[in-house]
């Protein structure tokens, strides 16, 4: 630190209770070995005392380490950035300019709320770890820091107290909408699958096998006791399946309530902030200009409920903390009109609900069908080779449906490009619209497969920052070659002319 600067602001420490939260965080990492030591160490006779006190000793060391971190972690808010000093033997000093901070995340679990503190994370683009993680600050300081980063990053002159009141609410989710969100999401299924996977890892195999066998036998005994006919047996099976599905949807609704309760999207001075959570509250924000690409999705269930969801890509590091905390959803569920209004508000030059989509010739539907048409017979062939039985041909039954689906998809495929925005749409059973501003495109690729060359077509792939593999890619497929080359040249020229904003 530089003591020569006369009016340098004072260094600050974390909240006095912060060691407790650091300790809890560390305990979470060490919980498995500690429990193992307690469970397996406690029962053995050898080295009894060591085994009993070992875990206590370990916890004691962790407490010491947490205290040490509390005493050595200082931060100072400078004019252009934050300075963070930490460490005792291995010291580090980190300067973070406000203008490089893309996102400020405030996180409050139930425990945090009891102590009136919050965890603050400052994130910049890319990388695996956040720039700084302050565990924990009291709420007042956390909010002040959040405010400061926002305003210093954008307009150094703005007074924090003045700007605080100007947040406009853009969108919020009432409880009924959160329940709808739970109904359309598959989160329950994913959690259930994860739980089953975890159980199969932790519980000994024989136990599970016994349990399945036993309950199966019981169910079978019960069923045969009822003397059900074939039809009523099937009905019972279907009923069970329905009940299971209902339970899973119920779980999804519960999870949605926990995660999205009180969801509120607000805007202040070009910065978007999302606040959500029932037990643990999260507040995360991103500047409008850091949004890299937009995704509008509508699954079959969305359509039944007349809803869509609007998501964004940001370039913030997403690997950390299971990317749950980055601002990725502007509207987890909303009516199409609400989505459009949001896009119009945030992208005023985009002319969003686009009327003029350039589509795929419907006779090109078979190109969407081709991968399935090749894969399914192959799968059936391999299965037939191994089993030699007729059921191996079942995958072929998928083909007519896939062909129909491809035809429908070809109808809806399309793209729309102007001097502001590149947009693609596609899908049929579950539909998507994906778009990005021209300024946010990073690289272009024109690709032609042998089939493309035979048919005189090409595909254009557009790359943006922060895209992930789960979302539909920003690509225009099966364009006539002349169109593709023209578009490619025009985009290249436009990108070279424009600075990134």
């Amino acid at each position, binding site marked *: 630190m530089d003591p020569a600067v006369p009016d340098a602001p004072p260094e600050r420490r974390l909240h006095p209770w912060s060691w407790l939260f650091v300790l809890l965080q560390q305990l979470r990492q060490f919980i498995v070995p500690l429990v193992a030591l307690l469970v397996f160490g406690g029962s053995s006779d050898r080295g009894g005392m060591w085994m009993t006190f070992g875990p206590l000793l370990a916890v004691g060391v962790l407490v010491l380490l947490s205290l040490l971190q509390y005493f050595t972690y200082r931060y100072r808010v400078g004019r252009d950035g934050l300075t963070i000093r930490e460490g005792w033997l291995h010291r580090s000093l980190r300067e973070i300019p406000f203008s490089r901070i893309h996102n400020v995340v405030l996180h409050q679990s139930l425990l945090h709320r009891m102590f009136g503190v919050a965890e603050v994370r400052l994130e910049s*683009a890319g990388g695996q770890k956040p720039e700084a993680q302050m565990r924990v600050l009291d709420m007042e300081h956390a909010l002040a820091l959040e405010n400061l980063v926002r305003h210093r990053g954008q307009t150094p002159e703005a007074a924090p107290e003045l700007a605080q009141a100007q947040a406009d609410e853009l969108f919020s989710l009432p409880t009924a909408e959160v329940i709808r969100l739970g109904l359309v999401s598959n989160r329950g299924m994913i959690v259930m699958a994860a739980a089953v996977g975890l159980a199969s890892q932790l519980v000994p195999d024989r136990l599970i096998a016994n349990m399945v066998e036993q309950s199966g036998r019981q169910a079978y005994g019960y069923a045969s006791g009822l003397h059900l006919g074939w039809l009523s047996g099937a009905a019972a099976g279907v009923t069970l399946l329905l009940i299971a599905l209902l339970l899973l949807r119920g779980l999804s609704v519960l999870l949605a309530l926990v995660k999205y309760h009180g969801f509120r999207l607000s805007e202040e001075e070009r910065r978007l902030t999302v606040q959500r959570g029932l037990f643990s509250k999260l507040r995360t924000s991103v500047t409008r200009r850091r949004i890299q690409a937009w995704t509008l999705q509508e699954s079959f269930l969305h359509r039944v409920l007349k809803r869509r969801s609007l998501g964004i890509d940001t370039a913030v590091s997403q690997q950390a903390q299971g990317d749950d905390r980055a601002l990725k959803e502007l509207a987890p569920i909303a009516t199409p009109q609400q989505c459009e209004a949001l896009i119009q508000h945030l992208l005023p030059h985009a002319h969003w609900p686009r009327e003029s989509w350039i589509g795929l010739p419907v006779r090109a539907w078979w190109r969407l069908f081709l991968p399935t048409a090749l894969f399914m017979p192959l799968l059936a062939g391999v299965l037939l080779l191994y089993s030699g039985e007729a059921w191996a041909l079942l995958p072929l039954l998928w083909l007519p449906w896939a062909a129909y689906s491809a035809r429908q998809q070809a109808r809806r495929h399309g793209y729309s490009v102007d001097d502001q925005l590149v947009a693609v749409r596609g899908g049929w059973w579950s539909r998507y619209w994906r778009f990005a501003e021209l300024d946010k495109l990073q690289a*272009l*690729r024109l*690709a032609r497969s042998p089939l493309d060359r035979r048919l005189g077509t090409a595909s254009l792939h557009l*790359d*943006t*920052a922060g895209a992930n593999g789960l979302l539909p890619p920003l690509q225009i497929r099966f364009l006539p070659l002349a169109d593709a080359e023209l578009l*490619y040249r025009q985009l290249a020229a436009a990108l070279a002319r*424009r600075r990134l904003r």
Partner: protein
Amino acid sequence: MHPEEIAPTPAPAPASLPSDWQLLPLRGAKLAALGSATGMAIPFALAFAALSRIRVLEFGNLFVMALIGALLGLGIGAWLGFMRHRRVSWKLDAEGFAVRRGNWWRTETRVPVSRVQHLDLKRGPLERGLSLATLVVHTAGTSMAAVTVSGLDGADAERLRDRLGHQLEQADDAL
């Protein structure tokens, strides 16, 4: 294209690089062939050994089959590597850097000058021996986050780096 054919003008002048499609120097083709051949030999050897093991290929013993596989892999790999190398061409113009690849599956990737994040120039020992270099152009994107061209002529690579890097200095924060 041989390096002697490129006009040796000083680096800072903006017109020091030709602005049409450039092939990689032929002397790099043997490196590409070598790399691809060694890459192909092992899977081929394993595949042949496996086929011999499950008695799809009925003649010879396991090791002879693995050897045949390795030789075949070497041959095919070398040929593929050579062809692939001859199909790579690059271009630097006012709009940016572009690379063309492939014969069956053809791609043309373009990184606009304003989107270059940083540049790497790499030279392995074999490349140094042939005065070749590998240029990696990084963007902030995801699937095209790094555009790699290996087997560039060393002087070309440096001029490319300087040209792209020069424009980089004037650019702003990219995200």
